[in-house]
């Protein structure tokens, strides 16, 4: 049930959708393909499913070469963003369709369908039609339909994109639980980084047709490999400044140690808003700053600070901390940076 992709390249006319993709997913993995629109993630997914043919490269499913096989022959489960349910068939018939096609005896189909209806928590709704279900229910039926013929892998193409925020959140958790229950190798595509980080064991970030970074959600968040990843995932403070000497980048009052940067080179420094620590009194390695903006963001407060000469920083303070310190617009505070990346 593993997926192995080697050197996959696909072009549409003059446009290269994916290039030189190598990806290994051992059996049981739950992986998210994350990237902006046009990054090639859907194309890669469809190539793995057999819905598109690559111009170069190979796809192996469960150790066997699958590149030459059509989508029909690969036995992959595929779930579409807009469900693609068969509108004129009942839920039960939708789910059983893959088995019907394989000429499985009806009794067996019925058994499997009812088992899956239980799994997706829609028992008793087998006789309904898709138009009678909510969006979230329809997507669950689509997943059940994909699972019924016991595929090798489960592929989901932006499965929650068409749903309300709340339903999306519920289904995200549901997919994670489903994966834990079935142990099926699952690969899903999303442009929503929260979704990728929350659900997947491993995240693969794509940009302009190439894989830019892969790793656990935490690794990606804490150690972005490129500027793109730092920009794309989570919020960042972005500073562009020159190195005044080898290995030292100065930005106003802030000084960053940057190994490998030569004097005079332009460096980009990224750090997360929660890596900015703000105190009323000087504690250590901080510079003076003035609060010019305060925004309530639920679990944390966002503070916008001015370091003088138009240099701005964004800091996120946990709610408790910001309330205790009582910072407000106009206050003079001390700000320092606890962790950053240099590109």
């Amino acid at each position: 049930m593993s997926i192995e992709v080697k050197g996959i390249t696909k072009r549409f006319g003059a446009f290269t959708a994916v290039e030189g993709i190598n990806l290994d997913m051992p059996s049981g993995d739950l992986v998210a393909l994350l990237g902006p629109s046009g990054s090639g993630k859907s194309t890669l997914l469809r190539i793995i499913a057999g819905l598109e043919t690559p111009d170069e490269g190979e796809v192996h499913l469960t150790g066997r070469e699958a590149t030459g096989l059509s989508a029909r022959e690969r036995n992959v489960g595929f779930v579409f963003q807009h469900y693609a349910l068969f509108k004129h068939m009942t839920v039960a018939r939708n789910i059983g369709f893959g088995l019907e096609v394989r000429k499985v005896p009806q009794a067996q189909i019925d058994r499997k369908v009812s088992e899956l209806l239980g799994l997706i928590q829609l028992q008793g709704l087998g006789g309904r039609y898709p138009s009678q279900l909510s969006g979230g229910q329809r997507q669950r039926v689509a997943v059940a339909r994909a699972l019924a013929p016991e595929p090798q892998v489960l592929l989901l193409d932006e499965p929650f994109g068409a749903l309300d925020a709340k339903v999306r959140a519920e289904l995200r958790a549901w997919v994670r639980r489903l994966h834990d229950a079935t142990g099926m190798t699952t690969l899903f595509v999303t442009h929503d980084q929260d979704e990728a980080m929350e659900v997947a064991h491993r995240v693969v970030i794509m940009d302009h047709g190439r894989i830019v970074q892969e790793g656990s959600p935490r690794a990606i968040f804490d150690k972005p490999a490129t500027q793109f990843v730092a920009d794309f995932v989570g919020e960042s403070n972005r500073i562009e400044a020159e190195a005044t000497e080898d290995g030292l980048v100065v930005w106003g009052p802030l000084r960053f140690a940057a190994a490998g940067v030569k004097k005079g080179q332009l460096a980009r420094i990224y750090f997360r808003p929660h890596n900015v620590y703000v105190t009323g009194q000087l504690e250590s390695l901080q510079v003076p700053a003035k609060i010019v903006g305060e925004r309530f963001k639920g679990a944390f407060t966002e503070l916008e600070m001015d370091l003088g000469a138009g240099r701005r920083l964004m800091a996120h303070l946990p709610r408790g901390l910001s309330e205790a310190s009582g910072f407000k617009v106009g206050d003079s505070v001390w700000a320092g940076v606890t962790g950053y990346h240099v590109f």
Partner: protein
Amino acid sequence: MTDLTQSPPSPSGRTQRVPAAPGFHLCLGYTLFYLGLIVLLPLAALFSKAATLGAPQWWALVTDPRVLASFRVTFGCAAAAAAADLGLGLLAAWVLVRYSFPGRRLMDALIDLPIAMPTAVAGITLVTLFVPGGWIGRWLEPLGIHVAFTPLGITLALIFIGLPLMVRSVQPVLQELDPDVEEAAACLGASRWTTFRHVLLPQLAPALITGFTLSFARVIGEYGSVVFIAGNMPYKTEVVPLLIITKLEEYDYAGATALGALSLGVSFALLLIINLLKRRYASGEA
């Protein structure tokens, strides 16, 4: 001292009449006038004249074997033609929408020929093609297939007339089909044929039924393209419109009117039934 008490809000039960937009009455008046003069008045004349026939005359008309034969011919050939158009129309629409081939644009344009062409021209052309000496007729005669001057000929003419209505009903639906659904079926292992039969055809069914209805309605009263190829032999290839004209030429206004009213009534009833069936089928999907 000015009265400062507020006037109570209008009682909630009173409905507000939205004033009609300017021009509404003008448009409605003109439309009703035009329709009244062109449609309602003449139809009223038809039904009132038909009503002057007494019950025994109606009975005589309805049971007249020649009349019954003409209804059989008309509705039988119309149904057969609409059914044939189902297959032919679906084939044409499928090929036009899904495949590329030389002549595709031309074929698409020519589909509308039966609509653009005057029925009399179609009539003389079809009969010329299918008489024993005609280009097609000469191949069919030795096979024992007689087309000209038989119900088969009538049906062929009606197939010609009804084709564009069927194709244009199915074509837009085919074009707008969601590729996702076909991909889903493929991932589930279905062959192209299985996908067509179980996934695509049911989606096309409403358009096919609509096309059938339109074709059927169109060809039931068809006259110009039929009257040449039919041969117009009473009891065998006489269609209702022709019988009406024959009666008119014999100055049997009452008979012609009654027959006209009858055929109108039967057509409407049939169309109503088809429409009901269509609604029932559609509601089966909830």
